[in-house]
């Protein structure tokens, strides 16, 4: 039984905007799943429908086998949601927010208090439990939303861009927390703009664009489709002109930085050979962007061309 099963899901908003054009999606139990797409692709609409915040136009969704229409309560009990926007009361304390959420899920106060201590503690907020939520920093507010989403210990956690606007250190600690949670059996569905995040964390991936799923596969398979990569080469000494690079697409960004596009079938050693024969010394090299980012842009480009 999949953790999440979406069949032919359509959403047309009252202003006639067709946000979802019949998407199908399966997320397996225990998966760490990425749902990627540009702004306005339909990610948040999909998540909103799964969680009961958006009315669907047609289609079916099952969460751990529970239909969201006929077994709404059972389906909702399996889901924890961390939304994109801050959506808790600014006039309540951190502890109050988490305990109330437990109450909404029918969890006794005594049990909710233990879980609040556990999750607020793990997310570094227990010391600030009695502070009003409005006094927290942006990163703390995001962590508070994660603690709130876990108070009923859901089987599936959905995070809609959880690390948007969060500094690098905090983002890494949130990744570790999510990896740990996933290893304990919680299915995680993540939308993010940071493709590096999806590449590092997720086992499977779906890409949504203009209300359609344009790719639904494993991260490994998707990355194997990449037929070219762009690298930056940092040079020891400045140069004024690039040597002939056997027809490879290349650009001198500045006197000490060269950008070269290398196809999968090409041998990267040839670049070093040419540089060496021209007395050009390379001190470092790096990817221009993450591999997933290049694929992502290619897929969206293809989708736009076929429309």
């Amino acid at each position, binding site marked *: 039984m999949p953790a999440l099963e979406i069949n032919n899901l359509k959403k047309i908003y009252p202003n006639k905007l067709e946000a979802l054009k019949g998407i199908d999606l399966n997320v397996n139990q225990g998966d760490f799943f990425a749902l990627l797409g540009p702004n306005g692709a339909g990610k948040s609409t999909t998540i909103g429908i799964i969680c009961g915040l958006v*009315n669907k136009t047609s289609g079916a969704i099952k969460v751990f086998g529970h239909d969201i229409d006929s077994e709404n309560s059972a389906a*909702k009990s399996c889901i924890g949601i961390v939304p994109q926007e801050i*959506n808790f009361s600014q006039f309540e304390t951190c502890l109050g927010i988490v305990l109330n959420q437990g109450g909404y899920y029918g969890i006794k106060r005594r049990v909710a208090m233990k879980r609040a201590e556990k999750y607020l503690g793990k997310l570094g907020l227990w010391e600030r439990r009695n502070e009003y939520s409005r006094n927290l920093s942006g990163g703390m507010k995001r962590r508070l939303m994660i603690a709130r989403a876990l108070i009923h210990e859901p089987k599936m956690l959905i995070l809609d861009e959880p690390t948007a606007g969060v500094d690098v250190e905090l983002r890494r600690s949130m990744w570790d927390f999510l990896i740990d949670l996933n290893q304990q059996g919680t299915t995680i569905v993540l939308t993010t703009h940071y493709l590096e995040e999806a590449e590092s964390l997720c086992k499977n991936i779906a890409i949504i664009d203009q209300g359609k799923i344009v790719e639904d596969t494993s991260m490994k398979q998707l990355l194997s489709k990449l037929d070219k990569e762009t690298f930056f080469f940092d040079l020891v000494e400045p140069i004024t002109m690039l040597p002939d690079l056997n027809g490879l697409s290349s650009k001198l960004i500045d006197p000490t930085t060269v950008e070269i596009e290398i196809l999968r079938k090409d041998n990267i050693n040839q670049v070093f050979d040419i540089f060496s024969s021209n007395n050009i010394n390379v001190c470092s090299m790096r990817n221009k962007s993450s591999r997933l980012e290049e694929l992502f842009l290619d897929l969206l480009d293809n989708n736009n061309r076929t429309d």
Partner: protein
Amino acid sequence: MPLQSLFIPFSTIVIKEVSRFMRIWVQTIVPPAISMTLYFVIFGSLIGPRIGTMNGFDYIDYIAPGIIMMSIINNAYANVVSSFYGAKFQRHIEEILVAPIPNFIILAGYVTGGVVRGFLVGMVVTIVALFFTDLHLHSFTITIAVVLMTSIVFSLAGMINAIFANKFDDISIIPTFVLTPLIYLGGVFYSIDLLPEFWQKVSAFNPILYMVNAFRYGMLGESDISITHAFIMLIIFTITLLIVSLQLLNRGVGIKS
């Protein structure tokens, strides 16, 4: 669904609602006490003796039930409309919408919050009234039943207003332009027998007339309207608003896109 799994979310909403208005008691409990004190001073103590009696009662005794009822109506309405719209505005209504809570429990929780505030403010204003006059109590049961039903009706009305509201203006338009005129023309300060026959018939369309008179009957044993008629109207208002607000929540009007 087990009863306990319904009771916990219900009590959570109620406790949250009551804590909310108690936390800001200076904004929620004190103002009605002050404004109603002014009513008693001006209309009861200063102008009242010059008016004399109304339907056989001293004027201050006659208006006291109406003034108490006015504060109950205003506060039951204000509590739900401001709290539910505030939750929509700050988006923390989503905390409730994502949880497995049936809509009737959400409605019951918010309405109970409104009823508790209505009762509390009603009690405060009653205590204020005792400084100006000796209150009568004709029927405790009728008095409590009317307060309960009236605060339910206006909590439900506040919920409907909040559901449709898209901006803060929308939650002040109805109380200012609809509720206040209906309260003042609902027999709080006068008997409708004083009105010309045409305006008496027009007054029969004002729901607050039935509530004020039923409450006055509970306290003084005197009413412009038959108590049975008043209760029938209260039951009709309660059921109608209950059905409408539940339907709106079920359809997700104003809260789901």
